[in-house]
């Protein structure tokens, strides 16, 4: 708003120079920084990946000629074909099952009068903020070949001639991901059911519609956009998940683990790029479907008044809702509980763990101090930078609405749908080997990858808060005589601060448990706790892995808890696209 007006360019040369220096450049400088960052560390790496995808596979990074070799693998190699197939099946199945359990749960909590709603909502968000691969390997303990739950279930199901399939493989991956990602559907559908204007349903009732009809013709159409967004979120996460397939996938590769396999096994960055491109293409297609098919049915609510929905109060509904939510919560939180138990015991083969010990914890300072430092240093640094970058870009796109704002929005949000392994590949392809800026093995490359992947959280959260914020608040400040920067500091930032904080908290908690990006970027001295946990699991050191996971769990939980104590903290807008 502080642009100097130049209505008639009839001023002399000196006048023009004077005008130039009178301009308020603080705005321009602040806006330029994120642009440069995005161009160098996002667009350039992505372009580089896209180009490499069409190069012949090579062990090094030198240019080896155009080729479709990388893509041909999907037709010729059994392993590639199988990975593609697995990725598809898992993502679709997980999306389906999360909707199946998340929507009823959202409805129950929103529309049934039941106890401990806040607790259910808080517990219901835990699975997505806990390291998912940690959950995966605890299922090995519970449902593995000698797992207690498996033995129990098999005994229970024996009369029906059914046996529980092994946790290793498709069943396990789908189960783990469903229990990890259902919170997205649960939280978003809860928000939609609770936020719906009761007057709309009441008016339908007064016009003679029965409950089923209201549900079908009013309630569901209005929450469809939320469900679509949630389904998309789950699909994108599921197809990009690295940790769960890496831990319990066994020979069942999916695209992210295939990328890791190509990179780790053969340092075939061009081949990995091809897989990455295919992975992204699928995600983009689904995003397109969501945006143009589901989102078309988005409605603006036209109403002056708003009343709260009436809750179901019958005993039957209460009991059903409580039991249903409880079962889901117990199942999804079972891994976290198991881990806590296991971190105190040496062995857990039979029904009960044996050999109580504190050893795993006492060893942490000695064996993991470097990893602890790395994890916190990298996550906190990246979070602070994300907060700055995300807020500024959100401010630009929402307030300044420059030409190309949509493009800016798209490029910032792109990493949201990119699997972590793909981001790593992009950064590696741009900044390793013979490239001008060489960053492999440094803290910098990990921080950049974190920023690229997590800035959307803050960005979305701040965008949502800015759209709610009347621009006249800022205009009032300008009118009072404040320069752009003063207004930004004293009015804009304080008002969007809650959004910045909630986005940052989400960023920090997810970064502390980040595995899929880090696994391709870390070097000996930049190893993080999740990497250490992962390799401990691979080496069968479950006790050490558990103890470290418990530490992560406690830290993450403490952060979330502290944030929930703060009034008005709402993370849901950070999830949306």
């Amino acid at each position, binding site marked *: 708003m502080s642009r*100097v*007006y130049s*209505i008639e360019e009839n001023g002399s040369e000196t006048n023009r120079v004077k005008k130039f220096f009178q301009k*308020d450049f603080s705005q321009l400088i602040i806006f330029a920084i994120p642009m440069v960052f995005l161009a160098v560390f996002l667009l350039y790496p992505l372009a580089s990946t896209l180009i490499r995808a069409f190069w012949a596979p090579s062990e090094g990074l030198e240019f080896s000629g155009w080729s479709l070799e990388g893509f041909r693998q999907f037709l010729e190699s059994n392993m590639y074909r199988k990975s593609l197939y697995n990725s598809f099946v898992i993502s679709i199945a997980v999306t389906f099952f999360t909707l199946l359990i998340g929507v009823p749960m959202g409805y129950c909590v929103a529309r049934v009068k039941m106890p401990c709603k806040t607790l259910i909502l808080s517990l219901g968000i835990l699975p997505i903020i806990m390291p998912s691969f940690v959950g995966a390997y605890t299922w090995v303990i519970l449902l593995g070949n000698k797992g207690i739950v498996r033995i129990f279930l098999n005994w229970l199901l024996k009369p029906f001639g059914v046996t529980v399939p092994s946790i290793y493989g498709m069943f396990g991956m789908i189960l783990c991901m469903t229990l990890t990602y259902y919170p997205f559907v649960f939280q978003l559908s809860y928000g939609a059911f609770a936020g719906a204007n009761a007057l709309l349903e009441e008016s339908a009732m007064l016009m003679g519609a029965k409950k089923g009809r209201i549900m079908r013709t009013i309630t569901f159409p209005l929450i469809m956009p939320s469900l679509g967004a949630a389904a998309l979120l789950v699909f994108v996460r599921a197809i990009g998940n690295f940790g769960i397939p890496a831990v319990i996938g066994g020979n069942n590769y999916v695209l992210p683990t295939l990328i890791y396999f190509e990179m780790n096994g053969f340092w075939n960055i061009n081949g990995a790029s091809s897989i990455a491109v295919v992975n992204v293409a699928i995600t983009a297609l689904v995003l397109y479907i969501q945006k143009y098919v589901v989102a078309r049915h988005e409605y603006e609510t036209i109403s002056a008044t708003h009343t709260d929905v009436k809750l179901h109060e019958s005993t039957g509904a209460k009991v059903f809702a409580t039991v249903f939510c409880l079962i889901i919560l117990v199942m999804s939180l079972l891994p976290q509980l198991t881990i806590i138990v296991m971190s105190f015991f040496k062995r857990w083969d039979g029904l009960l763990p044996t050999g109580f010990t504190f050893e795993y914890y006492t060893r942490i300072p000695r064996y993991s101090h470097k990893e602890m430092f790395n994890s916190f240093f990298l996550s906190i640094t990246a979070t602070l930078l994300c907060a700055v970058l995300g807020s500024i870009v959100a401010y630009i796109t929402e307030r300044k609405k420059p030409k190309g704002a949509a493009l800016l929005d798209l490029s910032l949000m792109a990493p949201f749908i990119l699997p972590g392994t793909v981001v790593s590949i992009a950064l590696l392809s741009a900044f390793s080997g013979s490239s001008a800026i060489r960053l492999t093995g440094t803290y910098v490359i990990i921080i950049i990858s974190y920023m690229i992947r997590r800035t959307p959280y803050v960005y979305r959260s701040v965008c949502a808060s800015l759209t709610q914020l009347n621009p*006249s608040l800022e205009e*009032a400040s300008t*009118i009072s*005589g404040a320069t752009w920067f003063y207004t930004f500091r004293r009015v804009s930032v*304080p*008002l969007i601060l809650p959004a910045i904080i909630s986005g940052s908290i989400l960023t920090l908690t997810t970064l502390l448990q980040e595995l899929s990006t880090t696994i391709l970027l870390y070097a000996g001295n930049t190893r993080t706790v999740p990497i250490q946990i992962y390799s401990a699991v691979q080496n069968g050191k479950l006790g050490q892995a558990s103890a470290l996971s418990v530490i992560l769990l406690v830290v993450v939980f403490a952060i979330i808890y502290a944030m929930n104590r703060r009034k008005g903290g709402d993370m849901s807008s950070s999830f949306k696209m």
Partner: protein
Amino acid sequence: MSKNVRYENVNKIYSEGTKNAVHALKDVSFTINQGELFCLLGPSGCGKTTLLRSTAGLEQISSGKMYYGDVDISTIPPYKRNIGMVFQSFALYPHMSVFENVAYGLRVRKTPNDIVIKKVTEVMELVGLQEELKRNPSPTALSGGQQQRVAIARALVYDPDVLLLDEPLANLDAKLRRYMRAEIRRIQKATNITTIFVTHDQEEAMAVGDRLAVLRKGIVEQIGSSDELYNRPKNAFVANFIGKMNFFNAKAVSVSSSETVAQIDGTSIKLTIPAEKCRFTPKTGDSVLIGGRPEHLIVSKENSEGSIRGKVHIIQHLGSFIRYEVDIDKGISPVTLEIDMDSMQKDIHENSEVFVNFKNDKLALFSPEGREL
């Protein structure tokens, strides 16, 4: 120090040079006197808010010049213009206390703290919020009327050259609105700051403003006091926007320097309008509009010389008068007439056949151009 505000050929074109270009202000030129409370009035989309925001510098004008006193402010950014503005939404900062909200403009100007306290206290007394200032709550804890006063106090505290009010009463309920408009006039007169008040409510504008400008489609139709605009509207648009005016299609049958005689279409009724009531000079045979305010017409059961047959559509009892809405021949008036009578008329009910008559000395003559809003 309060200043006058002068516009010279101000034009504002949105998305200039594209297909969707909107010419929001067309050659606007007029002067608002020092210390005046000036209303910009017009239907939505008339350009009144654009003109106000351009005056503030929140919109960039496409051509022309604007002056505060002798200073050309067209190229001065808004934060250097020293203006106060009250927004429709009040735009109070929820993250600051009432005191800090009001003090904001002083803090921006790096005013010493003791002066800040003094000035805030003074201005809060002026707007009648001294009690609230002692408690100093968050502005969200105040009622609508109090928030309005805080917004005014915040705009006044640093002695702006010009005070701008953008539909300041639109967010208040009807009763409070009537009260606050008197308050705004009191405060404006007490400070004597040149004030521009934007509204779409003609009653509010007439009640508050020293002078009013009626805008339509980016053009200033007429400027004058409430009395001038009501009793001597320049054209059919202003006549019908400031209060209600009923129009009758007619033809000029004889035109002289002292009067015009017009015959209402499809009837033999001839009305003589003195020249000072003719808002334009027609030629014999031209289409004209005869204008009569609701109180200038009479509705009766009896057919008399020079009356028009009609049918009562709706009767509304509005307290001090009764409004009869009467449909007459669409060729004479395509819209329903509104006729105000001092008392309920005997034997006239909804759907009754009635006769409309004129208080001949009150009628005015308009050009048929632009009668619609």
